[in-house]
Structure formats: structure tokens, C-alpha cells
């Protein structure tokens, strides 16, 4: 009797490991192992010293890295400026329309990412509706362009990752106890003061998650730069894709990819530190 009980307990202890095994093995083989292979490929010099790939990556494509981070930072800030007020309105002012509005935020993203970006190309095209309108308003010179500009690329990135900003912010706003806001107002805080001292700090986890979920995919994206930008707007993703699939200089391509991953990981950690200490203060 005691033996079976012990056997049952042992089975129970094994159970979670059996449950996670298939998925975790899959991730180890097709996510972790590939990253290690990438690292290994990046230091295969083929006659040259091991750091050759990295040296060429940083000396030849530093501008691309820099540009990618600049664009995705701009897109993240824009997405925050556009997304926070919308999340706020949905969480605090939408009432019964809340679920409908959330559905409306997600709905556009059920059409194919690439087709959406082509739609922006149609809108921003030379002689297209946006350029025409701005030229009528004399905000754009008669031969000025919208396509192939930094603005177009940053706008495209902002658009594509906006729901990743809106949803986490919405979730953190939704969790806030409304009585805290009422308490602040009872204590003679102005609405703006209550927002600044109560709502904004409590929504910071959402801002943090949303910023990361926007910044990371934006930094690695190359579709917006390729379709909406010109040769002067190409991002690091374009180079990685080109080196891997066309040029097939694998040690350079892997070095580029690895540097991108490391820089983003360091950025994430630093960002978590900064936001964490601000919350403590």
C-alpha cells in the first residue's frame, strides 16, 4: 500500500516534465541549437581570423545598425504617442463599447502583413492620394515625394507594430483599481494630477512590455524599409537577408545576425533596469 502511494507521488513528480517535454525539446532543437549554430558559423573564418566576420559586420554595416535602431526607436515613441491615449480611452471611457473597440484594434492585423505594407505603398505613391493632398495644402513641394523617405519607413514600422503597443498598455490600465483614481480626486488632486501620480505609474508595466514588443520586431524588420524606403533607408534586416540568401557569405551574415541579437538583449536588460529604478523612486 505504502509502495503504491510512493509510486503515485513519483509519477506526479514526473508528470510536469512529461508534459513539457515535447514542446521544450522542440524549442531546444529548433530555437536554442540554431542560435548556437549561428554563433559557431559567425566565428568560422575560413582562413581568416575568427573575428573577421564581426570586423566586417561592424566596419561595413555600422550605419545600417545605427539606422535600424534609430528608426525602431522613433517608431516605438510614435506608437506610444498614438497608442497610449487610445488604450486609455478604451480602458476608461469606452464603457460597453470596450470589447468592440478592442476587436477593431486587432482586426486590421488579420490581413496579410505584406499586403498591408503594399497598401501603404499605394497610399504614399508619387501622384497617390496622400502626396496629392499634401501638395494641394502646399505642405509638400510639387515634385516632393513621400515614398522612399525616412518618414514613410518609420510610419510603416509604427503602423505594423502599433497593436503590440496598444494591447499590453490596455491590459495594465484595465487592471487599475478605479477607486484609487477616485481617492486621488477626493484628496483634491486635479484630473491631470491623478493621471500623473496614479494612472501613469501603474500603467508602466504595460508601457514597458508594449515598447519592447514594438521595438524588437521593428529593429529586425526589413519589409517596410524595402517597400516604403529607398536605398538610403535600408535597415540591417535587409543586409542580413541579402548576405544569407543572395551573397551567401555565411560568416558575415551570422555575425550580423548575432550582433543584432546581442545588442537588442543588452538594450532590453538596460531598459528594464532604468524603468525598474524609476518605479522605485
Amino acid at each position, binding site marked *: 500500500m505504502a509502495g503504491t502511494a510512493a509510486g503515485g507521488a513519483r509519477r506526479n513528480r514526473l508528470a*510536469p516534465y512529461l508534459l513539457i517535454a515535447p514542446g521544450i525539446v522542440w524549442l531546444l532543437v529548433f530555437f536554442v541549437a540554431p542560435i548556437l549554430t549561428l554563433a559557431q558559423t559567425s566565428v568560422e573564418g575560413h582562413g581568416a581570423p575568427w573575428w573577421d566576420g564581426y570586423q566586417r559586420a561592424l566596419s561595413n554595416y555600422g550605419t545600417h545598425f545605427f539606422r535600424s535602431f534609430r528608426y525602431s526607436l522613433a517608431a516605438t515613441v510614435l506608437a506610444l504617442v498614438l497608442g497610449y491615449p*487610445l488604450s486609455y480611452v478604451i480602458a476608461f471611457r469606452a464603457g460597453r463599447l470596450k470589447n468592440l473597440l478592442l476587436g477593431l484594434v486587432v482586426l486590421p492585423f488579420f490581413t496579410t502583413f505584406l499586403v498591408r505594407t503594399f*497598401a501603404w505603398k499605394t497610399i504614399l505613391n508619387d501622384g497617390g492620394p496622400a502626396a496629392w493632398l499634401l501638395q494641394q495644402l502646399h505642405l509638400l513641394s510639387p515634385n516632393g515625394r513621400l515614398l522612399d523617405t525616412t518618414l514613410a519607413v518609420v510610419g510603416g514600422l509604427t503602423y505594423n507594430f502599433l497593436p503590440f503597443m496598444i494591447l499590453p498598455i490596455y491590459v495594465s490600465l484595465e487592471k487599475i483599481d478605479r477607486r484609487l483614481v477616485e481617492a486621488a480626486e477626493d484628496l483634491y488632486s486635479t484630473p491631470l494630477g491623478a493621471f500623473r501620480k496614479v494612472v501613469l505609474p501603474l500603467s508602466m508595466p504595460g508601457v514597458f512590455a508594449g515598447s519592447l514588443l514594438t521595438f524588437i520586431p521593428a529593429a529586425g524588420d526589413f519589409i517596410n524599409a524595402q517597400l516604403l524606403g529607398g536605398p538610403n533607408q535600408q535597415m540591417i534586416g535587409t543586409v542580413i537577408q541579402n548576405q544569407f540568401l543572395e551573397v551567401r557569405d555565411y560568416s558575415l551574415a551570422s555575425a550580423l545576425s548575432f550582433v543584432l541579437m546581442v545588442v537588442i538583449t543588452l538594450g532590453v536588460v538596460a531598459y528594464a533596469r532604468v524603468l525598474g529604478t524609476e518605479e522605485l523612486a
Partner: protein
Amino acid sequence: MRRLARWLLDGYAWLVLAYLFLPIFVIILYSFNKPAGKFNFVWKSFSFDAWLDPFRFEALFEAMKLSLRVAAFSTAVATLFGTLIALALTRYRFRGSGAVNLLLVLPLTTPEVVLGSSLLSLFLDVNARTGFSTIVIAHIMFSVSYVALTVRARIRGFDWTLEEAAMDLGAPPLRVFTKVTLPIIAPGIAAAAMLAFALSLDDFIITLFNAGSRVTYPLYVYGARRAAFPPQINVLATAILLVSLLALGATVVWQQRTLRQRTGSPIPLA
């Protein structure tokens, strides 16, 4: 003054929503365009041509079929794997669960171009030919995390003593699973499977690296910028949107109905 501020805030929110819908409006509008040349980027005249003949371009049709097959395979496997992980994380306290959580989040905080290129370097390293199976492998890899995290969020905080109650009443384990556990977790699994399917159907960057000579729907659209961009692309994009809308509506109705049936009152979903 305060009222004006609220009006401005609401107006701003509506403008952002309009921005979100602008390209969708363009996609639908241009599915009714009859372009002058091969590229459907400039408005010419209204026509139903593309809608009446959506499968005119065989390569596009084949690409769509491939995408649906990949999505079906990868969703089935990823939903199973992800759900098992979510069950383990919510039902058991075990050593290493922190590492499991980290391993689930990391693929989401790694740029797609890194995921795609690293997987390709693994396939190159072992001399695997890229094609249908490598696309499916890649899609399962990025879907498992989404499924596990979605299912976990949906079933966390549920009262698992119901299972014990069923066992105390003499139900065998399999019956407990089909009659108690499965009905509880089914809506969460359905939501996660839909997400995985949508992500697979839409994935471009990771697929580009691992597709070999196979062409999925997003890859076809990507290639179309050089050869020809027919309005049929817009027709299919609009059709995907309509189908997702229907599926979304159906699951919401179903979830609310099962919740009402099982518990008598809605339980928190997130």
C-alpha cells in the same frame, strides 16, 4: 474646459483607429480595381473582375493552398505542445519552471530575422534541404510560445479541485479529463489555435529563410512586386479578413455560451 479635454481625447482615439483602418480600406477598395497594367497600385476603374475570377493565377492559388497546409500542420502540433506546457505550468510546481518560462519568452523577444537566419544556419549545418517540412518546423517553433502563454493566461486561477471532486466521485482519470479538464481548457485552446493559425498564415520573414524553393502566400506577394501585382492578391487578403472575422465572432459566442453553461457565471478570461 474639462469637457473640451475629454472631447479632444476621444477625437484623438478615433483618429488613431482611422489610421489603423486606412490601409485595410485601401486593400478592400483596390480588390475592385481594374488596373491599367500588371500592377494594382494606381486606381483606374471599378470592376468585379477579380472577385469573379479569384483563382485566375495558378501560382497564387497554389501559394495559398501551401500556406493553408503549413498553417494546419503547424497549428495542430504547436497547439498540442503548447497546451501541454501550459498545463504543466499551471497545475504543478516543479523545479525548472522558471527556466521553462524564460525559454517560452525568449523566442518572442528575438527579432524574426535572427530566428529565421539561425534556423537556416542549423539546416545548412546538417545539410537539410529546405522546403515544406522546414517551413512547418519553423512555424511550430514560433507558435509553441504563443500557444503556451495564451492557454496559461486563460486557465490560470481556475478551480482545479473540480477534478479532485470528480475523482472522489469515482470517475476514472480519462473520464475526468474528457468531462472536466477538457471543457474547462477548450475555449483557451481554441483561442490559442486561432492565434497560431493566423501567425502561420501571415509569417513572412522566418519563412523567407527556410522555404527553399517553396512559395507561400506572403512569399508570393513579396515576389509580386517585381513581376505583376494582380487585384486577386487583394481579393484573397479581403477573404482572409472576412473568414477571421467570422471565426472570431463564432469563438466569442461559443466561449460565452460554454462559460455560462459550465459555471453559471462568466469567469475572468485574462
